[in-house]
């Protein structure tokens, strides 16, 4: 269990630390102005990639669960409760 929690923390830190570093390193050079349009649309596209990836994985998992564990699936096995008939 500790190994799994540690792995999760390391994974989270691997994402968080570079992001924080990136934020702190952003420059404020006078006379050079950021392109607001590029920044905002860039953020939008990046977050859309995250959103659609998560959406695809979650919907795929739901579809798989529904098909795999339907009663009519030849591979379906009764649960221990169903097999014993006492619930």
């Amino acid at each position, binding site marked *: 269990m500790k190994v*799994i929690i540690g792995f999760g923390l390391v994974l989270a830190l691997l994402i968080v630390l570079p*992001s*924080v570093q990136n934020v702190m390193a952003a420059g404020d050079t*006078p006379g050079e102005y950021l392109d607001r349009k590029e*920044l905002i649309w860039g953020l939008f596209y990046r977050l859309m990639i995250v959103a659609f990836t*998560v959406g695809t994985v979650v919907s795929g998992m739901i579809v798989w669960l529904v098909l795999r564990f339907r009663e009519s699936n030849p591979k379906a096995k009764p649960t221990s409760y169903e097999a014993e008939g006492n619930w």
Partner: protein
Amino acid sequence: MSGHSHWPEWIYVAVVIALMCYVGAEAWNVERLIEHVPEDAKLITVTGQQWLWTFEHEDGTKEIGELHLEKGEAYRFEIHSKDVIHSFNIHEYTVLMDAVPGRVNHVWFSPNVAGEFDIQCREYCGLIHYNMRGTLFVEDKGA
């Protein structure tokens, strides 16, 4: 608890936490960059009222329904409203900020392409809201 392994669940939790951190950090960073107004930005006072926009430059020059800016300069907008809530929008430059009576809102941008662009109200503000428009003229320096 059943005796089965829980490692897939923990990996799932870790990935979700990592994604949330990534999304939060990215959004925070972009917001921080956008809200940081350059010190040499020129002030434009924008006033919305039913149903037109007026603009006042630092030197006192006033414009109605038109705004002339120089390419490559940074501009800081102080946005006021005289009556109801409006929303100052320059779509081409992703500028959008509400004009609220009794309150001064701020937004800034630096036009990097010369040309004519639409200014519009993006908050329904009454009968002629649809026509509360203006034009932004971005001109090359010295033109």
